[in-house]
């Protein structure tokens, strides 16, 4: 298949089709709508042979998939901001029940007030639900990560959330190389063709437990989650063999030489990447660390990427804020680097509310951190630099 121009939502819809998902259940929400519309279109046209079910809420959408997944079907849903928040209790349930569900969250700011901006707090506030989280940087990656996820969840029974920025990726067209169906079939397990339980074998699933049993469940979940980075790496080799594309757990650019590293996730990283080489005679040597797998956070990978003595300053760009604490990526990074022999300084640059990152803004940030070493403890707000 030749290269095609498509946006993030279209790419996600195609990935769902190629992955032979058996039950899609969703509730429309901007900016996810065109994704489910695309699936519905393919479903109506017979291109998508799975079931597409329109339900009355995100809550029911994920409940529905919990059911379908209990039955053994390959399942998918997509949502955004309020919708993801509405699913919250079920995110926990799906993870606790070890159901291999794949979910796309298109980042959008949570109200109030109402907003359509690509703030990341919706997915980040679900970081403790026990789901794997990938943050995608471009449309090709959205498609590839989704296909990848179906294999990952079915092999690990940990549900996976594929996250990308609203509008910036969901509605922006890029050239994409869609896979061949045979490639996808080769990579994925064949879709389940039998129920996960047998009615002639009585069992109760997810019944009330005591603390000892529950603690085992949680411990097992945690240990399984710790293995995810290794499994992702392994599967990526397989993916690369078949699709000739590879995705790291976290992506480093110029980290061997950089004295100042900018850390970002999603499309922001793409923006930073293009910024790296805009000025030839810049006094700082810039590098980029893109966070891709956020849950579980690949600690060793990131620590090793940031281990160079050349790195003196780290600027974490967050398009989210945990009120009273600061950017969530920044906090995560600080926690991760605790106890690791690293002596650089960490600066926070915050674009909460979906502020667009511009080269001019980037320049101002670099200026600020070089002029005022005391700004390490403070948050540099993008909105103040506009």
């Amino acid at each position, binding site marked *: 298949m030749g290269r095609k121009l498509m946006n993030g939502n279209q790419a996600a819809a195609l990935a769902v089709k190629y992955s032979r998902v*058996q*039950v899609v*259940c969703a509730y429309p929400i901007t900016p996810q709508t065109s994704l489910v519309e695309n699936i519905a279109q393919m479903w109506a046209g017979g291109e998508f042979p*799975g*079931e597409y*079910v*329109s*339900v*009355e*809420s995100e*809550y*029911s*959408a994920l*409940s*529905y*998939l*919990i*059911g*379908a*997944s*209990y*039955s*053994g*079907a390959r*399942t998918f849903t997509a949502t955004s901001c309020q919708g993801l928040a509405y699913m919250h*209790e*079920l995110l926990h*349930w799906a993870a606790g029940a070890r159901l291999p569900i794949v979910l796309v969250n298109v980042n959008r700011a949570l109200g109030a007030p109402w907003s359509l901006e690509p703030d990341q707090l919706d997915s980040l506030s679900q970081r403790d639900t026990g789901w794997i989280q990938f943050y995608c940087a471009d449309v090709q990656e959205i498609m590839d990560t989704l296909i990848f996820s179906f294999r990952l969840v079915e092999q690990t029974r940990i549900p996976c959330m594929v996250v990308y920025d609203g509008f910036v990726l969901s509605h922006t067209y890029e050239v994409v190389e869609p896979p061949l169906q045979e490639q996808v079939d080769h990579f994925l397990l064949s879709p*389940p*063709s*039998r*129920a996960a*339980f*047998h*009615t*002639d*074998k*009585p*069992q*109760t*699933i*997810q*019944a*009330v*437990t*005591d603390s000892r*049993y529950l603690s085992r469940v949680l411990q097992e979940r945690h240990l399984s989650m710790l293995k995810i980075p290794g499994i992702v790496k392994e599967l990526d080799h397989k993916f690369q063999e078949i699709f000739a594309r590879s995705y790291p757990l976290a992506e480093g650019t110029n980290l061997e030489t950089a004295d100042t590293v900018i850390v970002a996730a999603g499309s922001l990283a793409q923006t930073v990447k293009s910024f790296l080489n805009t000025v030839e005679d810049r006094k700082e040597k810039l590098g980029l660390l893109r966070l891709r797998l956020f849950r579980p956070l690949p600690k060793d990978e990131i620590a090793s990427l940031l281990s160079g003595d050349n790195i003196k300053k780290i600027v974490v760009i967050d398009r989210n804020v945990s009120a009273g604490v600061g950017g969530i990526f920044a906090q995560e990074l600080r926690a991760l680097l605790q106890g690791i022999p690293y002596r650089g300084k960490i600066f926070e640059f915050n674009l909460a509310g979906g502020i667009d990152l511009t080269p001019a803004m980037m320049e101002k940030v670099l200026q600020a951190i070089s002029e005022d070493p005391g700004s390490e403890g403070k948050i540099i707000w993008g909105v103040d630099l506009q």
Partner: protein
Amino acid sequence: MINTLVGDFSREEFMLSGHNACSGCGPAIAMRFIMKVAASGAVVVIPASCWSIISGVVPLRSLKTVVLHCPFPAAAATGGGIKKGLEAVGDSRTQVIVLAGDGGTFDIGLQGISGAAERNEDIIFICYDNEAYMNTGTQKSSATPYGSYSATTPAPKVKSDPKKDIMEIVAAHRVPYAATATIAFPGDLSQKIQRALETKGFRFIHILTPCPEGWGSPADITVKLSRLAVLTRLFPLYEIKNGAEYKLNFLPEDYLPVNEYLKPQKRFASLDKLQIEHIQESVENHWKELCCKTGTRK
């Protein structure tokens, strides 16, 4: 089969002794008959409710079939999903039975029921109605009747609003089958489960299941109260097909005054004469409406 005075039932049990229901539990009786008819060919979905406990705390299980627990409001959607998932993997035979309490039906589960009913999901949704949140100690639900005490409607501020008419809500979705039943009429109850099993699409059964703990009634009158609810016409037994065809299944020979039903229950202890008259009147009005819809002259 065992032929009893109250109906002929399969000898085989799909529920086990030793479950943790309180002494004299109405929902336990209801489930026993449901399972007798549905047998083991059904997956049972249970949201938070008394049956979350009765079905067994790990590692125990009291039902001889597959039981899936799900979050409180999620029952109808989860049930629909299970059915759809089973079909997707090639099992179109297994029946999905959702067993929710009144909280999971009248209150927190209502949206999911409405959605599932509208989509005509191929599931049987059974509400075992003990008229309050009994598993957590008798807090009011929208199924709690007028004049009833609950931990959140303590006397003298007992519930001042009538019980939600769930049957009308479900019927308004034009579902293929909806029925009321209660444990004192196990033959009728079993027949309705059977009819539900033979129908395709969204099926709804509303079962009144007295709760001695929550109703403040002696454990031994659980079945008697269920019977009195029908004989006083407070809880008529009827079916609605396609949301429009109403049928009364039991016409009491002579109507007992509602007080016969209210009196043995401590939750109604604060009712005065006027309030009882009010209940009597509303029972009669509802009955009249029902007679109108069913074409019954009585």
